[in-house]
């Protein structure tokens, strides 16, 4: 879609100003139902669009992404624009700088429409944990869009943005992409700088792209990846253009499958579709081979120990002193009265009591417990050991295969409220996605079919996991699947 729009812009069939206005109009019409956006950055977008139109008019060279409107998850900072991360504790926070990915998007003249809804600080699998609003799945408004990047994914699926950025700590891009029938990519840990993205679990967090075609997702990745001195985990990417690696057949591509991804809890109808997708890959010349990822069955508990531990540390910065909600700050917040001038400790306790939602508090406390004296060895250290075993599984597997295929989620989009009472039940929605974050490898979710639910059906996502820093191969395989679908 990005390439088509780019051609039209260059040919003068459309202007970026017209295109951007059209998307704002779509948001005005559709978003009261979908609820994907928290803040619109209309002034910024129109200014960017006008600049692109002037460049095109003057026949200056413009990037593929130039003038094409997208949306940004609300935990990524855009200078001068409100950034809440879905939390009341940042209700009045205006980002004072651009995240590195935003700087790069702006350098390529990508137009920024606004900021999208999410589970508070990325903690959730349905976007129901946003302190602001519910986001509906554009495929079926009775169902959740998945999470935590539910707003970014729903915006793209609902036609309110051409592309979007999300963050993925345990599946937060891929699981909603699966639920809404679009494409979502979590790059390798270190491929994209997280500077300016609000940290949730720093050893797992990664920024990635969402779009309606594999090519779009690749185009965005090319523009946001690379080394950044502000994020020491990043690696050099040598200006690679991922969209140029999609063509060609996938004959003799070795696809690994593991029984750990087809176990208990997987919907039979999804299993069927995954098998069909494998047959499709085979018909395109790929070879399918069984591999051993046996330690993946421990991935979910390992993930929840490591993630909550890092959450407890990262969210200590929200203390009511430096920014965001403060119990002393009743002018801008709606804190109940009766909290008179208090000591420093009370500022902390009360600010965090009223600023954080239930799931965030639960995870901070779990992590605090796991890291506390006397429990550290039994939880955090143990989890880091099992994580080493999970990584070893992948190292061995990638000696035999090029990519690994699995369902993205064990289920299709569920209904609102179905899992909100039982945190563990919600956590299980990430069972097939967390492994890639623990191992640090790239993974993409793309539509492989639908099940039931009337005419349109509910989308099912397939997941391809690749080797470290080998986004090309999973993008190419997903692209070949996409264009040979029929």
């Amino acid at each position: 879609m990005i390439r088509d729009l780019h051609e039209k812009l260059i040919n003068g069939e459309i202007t970026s100003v017209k295109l951007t206005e059209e998307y704002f109009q779509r948001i005005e019409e559709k978003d009261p139902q979908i609820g994907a956006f928290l803040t619109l950055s209309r002034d910024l977008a129109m200014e960017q669009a006008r600049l692109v139109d002037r460049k095109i008019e003057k026949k200056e060279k413009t990037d593929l992404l130039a003038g094409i409107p997208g949306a940004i998850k609300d935990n990524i900072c855009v200078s001068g624009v409100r950034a809440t991360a879905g939390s009341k504790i940042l209700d009045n926070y205006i980002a004072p700088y651009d995240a590195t990915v935003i700087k790069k998007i702006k350098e390529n003249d990508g137009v920024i429409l606004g900021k999208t809804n999410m589970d508070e600080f990325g903690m959730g699998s349905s976007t129901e944990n946003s302190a602001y609003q519910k986001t509906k799945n554009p495929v079926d408004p009775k169902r959740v869009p998945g999470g935590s990047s539910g707003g970014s994914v729903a915006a793209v699926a609902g036609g309110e943005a051409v592309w979007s950025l999300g963050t993925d700590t345990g599946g937060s891009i891929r699981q909603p992409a699966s639920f809404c029938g679009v494409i979502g990519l979590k790059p390798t840990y270190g491929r994209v700088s997280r500077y300016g993205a609000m940290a949730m679990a720093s050893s797992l967090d990664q920024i990635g792209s969402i779009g309606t075609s594999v090519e779009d997702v690749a185009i965005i990745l090319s523009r946001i990846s690379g080394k950044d001195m502000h994020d020491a985990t990043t690696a050099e990417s040598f200006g690679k253009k991922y969209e140029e690696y999609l063509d060609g057949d996938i004959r003799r591509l070795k696809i690994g499958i593991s029984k750990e991804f087809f176990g208990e809890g997987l919907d039979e109808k999804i299993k069927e579709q995954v098998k069909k997708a494998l047959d499709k890959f085979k018909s395109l010349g790929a070879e399918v081979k069984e591999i051993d990822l046996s330690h993946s069955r421990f991935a979910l508990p390992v993930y929840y120990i490591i993630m909550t531990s890092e959450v407890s540390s990262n969210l200590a910065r929200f203390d009511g002193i430096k920014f965001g909600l403060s119990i002393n700050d009743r002018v801008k917040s709606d804190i109940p009265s009766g909290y008179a001038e208090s000591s420093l400790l009370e500022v902390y306790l009360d600010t965090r009591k009223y600023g954080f939602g239930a799931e965030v508090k639960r995870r901070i406390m779990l992590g605090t417990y796991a890291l506390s004296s006397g429990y550290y060895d039994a939880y955090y250290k143990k989890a880091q050991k099992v994580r080493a075993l999970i990584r070893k599984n992948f190292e061995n597997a990638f000696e035999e295969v090029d990519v690994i295929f699995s369902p993205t989620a064990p289920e299709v989009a569920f209904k609102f409220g179905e899992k909100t009472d039982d945190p563990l039940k919600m956590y299980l929605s990430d069972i097939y996605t967390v492994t890639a974050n623990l191992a640090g490898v790239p993974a993409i979710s793309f539509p492989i079919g639908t099940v039931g639910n009337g005419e349109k059906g509910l989308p099912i996502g397939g997941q391809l996991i690749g080797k470290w820093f080998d986004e090309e191969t999973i993008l190419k395989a997903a692209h070949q699947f996409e264009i040979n679908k029929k």
Partner: protein
Amino acid sequence: MLSKEEVKNIAALARIGLNEDEIEKYRKDISSILDYFQKLNELDTDSIKPIGHITGRENISREDRVEDAGDIGIKEILKNAPETKGGYVKVKSVF
């Protein structure tokens, strides 16, 4: 199952104020998730080294050079602070 006192202690360490109902709720929630974590005990990891950085990077260094950002951003940063005084963030006395 965690005791009420244990939950209160965790909340205090985490600097989160809780009321009685919440203490009871989190007692149940956290206990059941901690039980789930026990699954890891099925695995003997005595000889395993815990993982460090997942893609194996270490000791990222750069030249020790000051980059003067001037006063750009100070206004924007202070705008987000609940209380300021003379161009600084105001903090309550610790003692």
